[in-house]
């Protein structure tokens, strides 16, 4: 069992992350009730990004795994970003 993970996360850490996720969920639901126009969408996506970061880093263990996994993640995120950007650049300026 090499390289798997020398760092075993305890139950407590997982539970703390879960509580944080629930907190962010309640924040995002509450904010949705407040009318801030375009801003609401931005905040909702921002909170979703924070929740994702928690899930990816701790539940999915990226934070404690070999660096190559972070590289993988960065590359795929970049790909998605490029796809979205190019599509919108096209669509907006038609």
């Amino acid at each position, binding site marked *: 069992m*090499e390289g798997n993970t020398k760092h075993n996360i305890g139950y407590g850490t997982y539970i703390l992350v879960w509580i944080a*996720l629930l907190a962010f969920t309640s924040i995002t639901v509450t904010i949705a009730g407040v009318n801030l126009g375009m801003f609401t969408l931005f905040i909702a996506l921002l909170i979703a990004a924070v929740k994702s970061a928690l899930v990816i880093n701790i*539940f999915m263990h990226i934070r404690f795994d070999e660096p190559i996994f972070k590289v993988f993640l960065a590359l795929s995120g970049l790909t998605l970003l490029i796809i979205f950007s190019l*599509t919108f650049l096209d669509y907006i300026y038609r």
Partner: protein
Amino acid sequence: MSNHGTEAALLHTHRDDTGAKMGMWLFLFTEVLLFGGMFLVYAVYRFKYPDQFHIAAMELNTAVGTLNTIILLTSSLTVALSIAAIQKGNRFLAMMMLSATLLFACMFMVNKFFEWSTKFSHGIYPGSKELLARPNGQILFFGLYYVMTGLHGLHVLIGMVILTFMLVFIKGKTINPDNYIKLENSGLYWHLVDLIWIFLFPLFYLIQ
């Protein structure tokens, strides 16, 4: 079944847990591109029909969506706990947590079932007369809603099958404190299912 004799040990398959994990992540990225593509379609059409999307979204039940979010987040917790348990050699707890994950998954699907059937009974489904009579933006919203939550639901079902196999493997000791990469990879898949929902939720249920 694997051999345990000394000569056979030399023929034993080479184990590469990091490689296995890499393989799983690569697969997850293909899933991200799959759903990413659909999110892209959503983004463009929401940009084009912001008001229609808003009107259509009001017909979705935010409370059920929130409940489902909480259910999936908790199921991610339990699957992570089951891995922690097997690492600590607590087979019983690992199986309990895995069972809890499966239970939450069931609850999610039951909610989905009621959500969808309510919509159907109101005449809102892809291709329905009632839906097609509405403005373009609303038709698109519901089309995206059904396809994306439907595909997501399918992934939940597949995840349930996978996790059930893991339960069997733990029971049969195929998965044990010295070899639990299968469980970790299944956990990764499950977290992805949760991640996709983390984005689906605000985009469909929180456009108020």
